C-alpha cells in the first residue's frame, strides 16, 4: 500500500500535518456521527487524537449570492434552510433585520406570537440536539421519546402557518396569522408533556453511570478561550460565561418576561447537555408568560404593520442579531435603495464554534471526539450557507 501517496492526497486538502507513526483517519463527510456533511481528518496515535482538522463546504449552496438576486420578501424562505431544526428563529431574525433597516416596529401582538413560536422552535432544536447526542453515545431510547414530543410541536406549527420544518413564518412587518384556536386547548396539556419527556430523558441519562463517565470531564473548555474563539450560545454558557442576547440586548418583548439563564462550570459535554435541558424548561416558562401577555391584548389587535407591496429600504447597512438556539444569529444587510439587497451576510453561531474544533479535541480519544461533535450542535445548513 502506497502510504506516501495516500498521505499526499490528504495533504492537498488539509495542508501540512505531522507525519510520523500516526494513523490518518478520515471521518466523513458521510458518516453516522457526522451531522450532515461535516468532515474531520484526524491523525491519531492509537486512540488518542493528535490533530483533527475539520473541513466544511459540502453544503455550500450559495445562499448569500442568491440573496443578492431575490427581493427582500423572496429571500425569506431561504432563511428557513439555514438552521433547519429551528427554522422560525432564522425567519424572525431576518424579518427583524429588515425591519431595523426600514426603521419600523411591529405591533405588540405580532411580537408575542413571534416570541411564542421562537421558543417552541428552541425547544424543538434542543430536543433534536439532546436526542442525537444520546444516539451518538449509544443511548437510543431518549431520542425516540424526544422525537415523539417534537411531533406535537410540529403540529402547532402546521396549524399556524402550514409547514412542519421549513416554516417561513411571518412576514416583514409582522405575522400573517393569529394563534390557531386549537392552540389554546393544546398548550396547557403540551407544557406537561414537554416536561414529562424532559423528565424521562433526565431520569435515563443524567445520573446514569455510563453517561456520566462518557460526558463529565470530556472537552473541558475555559471561558476566556471560548470568548477568544467567538463562541456564543449554549457552548459559551456551558463554559461559565453568562451571555444571552435575550437579556443583554433585549429584542421583541423579552425584557417583559422573567426567566433565568442556565450557566455551566467546566464547559464539558455534560455541562452543554445540562444547559440545553435547563433551557428547554426556561422556554416553557417564557411561553407561559408570553401567552399570558397575549391574552391581555384585545382580539382585534393588529398583526401586521401596513407595508408597501415592494419593499425598498433606504440606502444604508445594519447588523441585527438574535439569540437562536445555537447562539448569536446575526444578519448584516446592505441596501442600495433598490428592491433587492446589495449584500446579505449571515453570522452563523456554529461557524465560530466549529473552527475551534481542533483545540477542543486535541489529546482526547476518538469516542470523545464523536461526543464533542454531537454536543456542538453543528448544523451544516447554517455552517456552509
Amino acid at each position: 500500500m502506497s502510504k506516501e501517496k495516500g498521505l499526499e492526497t490528504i495533504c492537498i486538502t488539509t495542508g501540512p500535518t505531522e507525519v510520523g507513526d500516526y494513523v490518518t483517519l478520515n471521518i466523513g463527510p458521510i458518516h453516522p456521527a457526522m451531522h450532515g456533511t461535516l468532515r474531520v481528518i484526524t491523525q491519531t496515535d492509537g486512540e488518542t487524537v493528535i490533530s483533527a482538522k475539520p473541513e466544511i463546504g459540502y453544503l455550500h449552496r450559495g445562499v448569500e449570492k442568491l440573496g443578492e438576486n431575490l427581493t427582500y420578501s423572496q429571500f425569506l424562505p431561504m432563511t428557513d434552510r439555514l438552521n433547519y431544526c429551528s427554522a422560525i428563529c432564522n425567519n424572525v431574525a431576518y424579518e427583524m433585520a429588515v425591519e431595523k433597516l426600514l426603521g419600523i416596529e411591529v405591533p405588540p401582538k405580532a411580537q408575542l406570537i413571534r416570541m411564542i413560536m421562537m421558543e417552541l422552535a428552541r425547544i424543538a432544536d434542543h430536543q433534536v440536539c439532546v436526542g442525537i447526542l444520546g444516539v451518538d453515545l449509544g443511548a437510543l431510547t431518549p431520542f425516540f421519546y424526544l422525537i415523539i414530543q417534537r411531533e406535537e410541536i410540529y403540529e402547532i406549527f402546521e396549524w399556524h402557518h402550514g409547514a412542519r420544518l421549513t416554516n417561513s413564518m411571518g412576514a416583514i412587518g409582522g405575522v400573517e396569522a393569529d394563534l390557531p384556536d386549537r392552540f389554546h386547548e393544546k398548550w396547557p396539556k403540551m407544557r406537561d408533556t414537554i416536561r414529562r419527556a424532559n423528565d424521562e430523558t433526565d431520569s435515563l441519562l443524567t445520573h446514569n453511570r455510563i453517561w456520566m463517565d462518557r460526558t463529565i470531564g470530556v472537552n473541558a473548555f475555559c471561558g476566556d478561550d471560548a470568548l477568544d474563539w467567538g463562541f456564543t450560545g449554549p457552548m459559551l454558557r456551558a463554559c461559565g460565561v453568562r451571555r444571552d442576547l435575550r437579556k443583554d440586548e433585549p429584542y421583541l418583548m423579552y425584557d417583559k418576561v422573567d426567566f433565568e439563564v442556565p450557566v455551566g462550570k467546566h464547559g464539558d459535554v455534560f455541562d452543554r447537555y445540562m444547559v440545553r435541558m435547563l433551557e428547554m424548561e426556561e422556554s416553557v416558562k417564557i411561553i407561559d408568560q408570553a401567552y399570558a401577555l397575549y391574552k391581555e391584548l384585545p382580539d382585534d389587535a393588529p398583526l401586521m404593520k401596513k407595508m408597501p407591496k415592494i419593499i425598498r429600504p433606504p440606502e444604508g447597512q445594519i447588523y441585527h442579531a438574535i439569540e437562536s438556539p445555537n447562539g448569536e444569529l446575526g444578519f448584516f444587510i446592505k441596501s442600495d435603495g433598490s428592491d433587492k439587497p446589495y449584500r446579505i451576510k449571515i453570522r452563523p453561531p456554529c461557524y465560530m464554534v466549529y473552527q475551534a474544533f481542533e483545540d477542543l479535541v486535541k489529546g482526547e480519544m476518538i469516542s470523545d471526539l464523536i461526543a464533542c461533535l454531537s454536543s456542538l450542535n453543528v448544523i451544516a445548513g447554517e455552517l456552509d450557507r
Partner: protein
Amino acid sequence: MKFQAIQGEGWLLTKAEQLINWGRSRSPWPFPYGTACCGIELMCALASGYDMARFGAERVAFTPRQCDVLIEAGTITKKMVPVLKRIYAQMAEPKWVIAVGACACSGGVFRTYSTQQGIGSIIPVDVYIPGCPPRPEGILYALLKLIDKIEADHPLYKQRRKVVEALEAAK
C-alpha cells in the same frame, strides 16, 4: 408472490423471478444519506412516529456495503458529487436509489454556482419524491412504491435477453 398451486405436502409453483423479487422487496435496508433539511424529515420517518421499520427498513445500515436502498435526502453540492458517486459505487448489487426532496430531484430552490441540479445525472434514481421537505408519509409512500417496483422487476429476464440477443447475433 403469486402462488400457482399449493398441493398437499406444501409444494409451491411459481416463477423464479417472482421468488427473487419476493426475497428482495421485503427487507430493503436503507442507507440514510441525509445532508440537509430533508435529512431531518427522514429522521422523523425512521423514528417512532412514522416508523419505517414496519415496511422492512428495519436495520438502518450506516455502511454502503450492507445496505440496499440509498435514500438521498438533501441538497447535493458540486463539492459532494464525487463522494456520492463513490458511495454509490461501494454499494453491492442489487441496489436502488430514492431521491428525497426538491434539491435531490432537481436542485430545488438553489439554482446557484455550487449546487448540483439534481442527482439523476450522477447516479440512476428509482423513485423521486417531490416536496421541500416532503412529509414523512411521503417518504413512506416512496418506499412502498419502491417495493412495488422491485416486485415488478425482471432480474433474470435481463440476463435472458442478453443471451438471446447474443445467440441471434451469432446466427
